[in-house]
């Protein structure tokens, strides 16, 4: 992939018709990426049971989305499903695991604890308030824990992002679709348009830049 994603864009930069080729290539590459996500088995607490339920067990099968092989090693995984609370002591290990994963890597945060600290957000001296203070997170699945279908929905949301996601010419820049859920029955139009405008401005997130700028949490 290094040849296609790194060298080819430079070689073909000024060639006529390269736009069409790149767009085709993007579609193929993103299709392949979206349909072969291998999750890393990373479960710390309660959400891990529901996460085991979703990919591994018999009733909800992640293999139907091309994500069947849960890998114990970060080197072979491209999706990190954060299932469970992250505490200060685990945070550097999580960062290491994330850094060991090959690009492109995707992160799903499931459950209240991972998204924000959840029930341990206040009065706790050790719980990290949100995994996104340690690593960049692509999709948030709320719930405590989210049911396996909810996690599958999160995976589908991630696939949607990947399909419309990175382009060969701008690697690392992820185009997130505006919102996965448009609220129904909006009565005041300006609230909506204002909100959507806000979201649109924020839609392009430079993940690499964000990761570089991110400092290690204090107290570790």
């Amino acid at each position: 992939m290094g040849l296609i994603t790194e060298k080819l864009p430079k070689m073909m930069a000024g060639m006529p018709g390269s736009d069409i080729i790149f767009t085709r290539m993007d579609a193929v590459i993103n299709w392949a990426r979206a349909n072969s996500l291998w999750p890393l088995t990373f479960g710390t607490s309660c959400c891990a049971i529901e996460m085991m339920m979703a990919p591994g067990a018999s009733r909800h099968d992640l293999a139907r989305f091309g994500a069947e092989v849960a890998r114990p090693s970060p080197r072979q995984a491209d999706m990190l499903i954060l299932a469970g609370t992250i505490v200060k002591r685990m945070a550097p290990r999580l960062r290491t695991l994330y850094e060991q994963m090959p690009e492109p890597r995707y992160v799903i945060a499931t459950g209240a604890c991972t998204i924000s600290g959840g029930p341990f957000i206040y009065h706790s001296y050790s719980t990290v308030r949100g995994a996104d203070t340690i690593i960049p997170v692509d999709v948030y699945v709320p719930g405590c824990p989210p049911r396996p279908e909810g996690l599958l929905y999160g995976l589908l949301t991630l696939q949607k992002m990947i399909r419309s996601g990175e382009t060969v010419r701008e690697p690392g820049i992820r185009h997130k679709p505006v919102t996965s859920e448009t609220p129904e029955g909006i009565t005041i139009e300006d609230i909506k348009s204002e909100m959507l405008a806000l979201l649109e401005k924020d839609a392009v997130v430079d993940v690499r830049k964000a990761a570089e700028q991110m400092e290690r949490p204090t107290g570790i």
Partner: protein
Amino acid sequence: MNVHVSTLDEKTRSSLAIESHSETEEYFINMGPQHPSTHGVLRLILKLDGETVREVIPVLGYIHRSIEKISEYSTYRQIVHLTDRMDYLSAIMNNWAVARTVEKAAEIETNERIESIRTIVSELERIHSHQLGWGVLGMDMGAFTPFLYGFRDREMITDILEETIGARLTMNYIQPGGVMFDIHPDFVRKVKEYLAYFKPKLDEYEDLLSGNPILQQRLRNVGIMDAETALSMGATGPVLRASRVPYDLRKIEPYGMYGEVEFRVAIGTAGDCWDRYYVRIEEMRQSMRIIEQLIDNIPEGKFLLKKPAAKLTIPEGRHYSQIETARGVLGFYIVSEGKETPYRAYFRTPNFHNLWSLTAMAPGGRVGDLVAIISSLDLVIPDIDR
């Protein structure tokens, strides 16, 4: 007086300096905190001689969420919801431990209907916890099918509980003074259907896994712990009962409806992994027996005696009571000053005490046996770290 406080670094170094058991060189390897067979974020530092384990140094705290500190700022009703997240596979029983302590301390009465419902859902939860333990043990021993079967049957219990309670894992169901919802109209029928379904399935489990000579070879005479060591190590639950100590709070200090139903305490003979494995299988049978006796005659009555007022205070003093969860004795100790929030709340969790016995069982065995021992302890790591 001079007390030396050491560090992990010092501990490993001094451990190596102790005279070697053999002529070969001993070395450390690190297992976890991200390892598929430690069932979570448990980290073990193993001192090995070849493949023989000489010493196990568990390192905890990778999921220490300071539940006890948060409890000091929470009302008693709010503490119930924190206990869901300790041993999430026996969440209802954890709720019960808090509810029971608070009820005992504040002298809140309950009725027979409440106790029956509590007993039935707790036993259902115990079955599904053991099913998961069985499946994961199979997977750790190299058989993937038990994992699928265990989860398939566990999911059915989750469905039954979900219909009544509304949650799949973190239930927050048993409240001081009652339960949160009345049982669903379909509950009794579905539980009976499930028992009829699961009884032959349990025999199938035995055919599939218990009868397997490879599994027996890997579990029997591995990780032996005698009764005296187990008691000194503070082990409880199936781990202690496998060492031939019939210490089961459901029998010894009956609570709920356990005093009025017939069941037997499953015990082992040698205290090895096989006994711990089989005690769980047998406990599923006994749990089904308990449910069968209770399900047909749940008494009429209210399911929540008091509308949950915002304020619930406990008289000043020290209060303790304990519950037999799927993994052992869960005790809840409150020091109260007569306010809405406890002055100090302490959870005596079963896994914390069970894990310690690993340091007595593992030395002398192989690394492969260590995996078997960890599986047979059926650990839930957040319950250790709290």
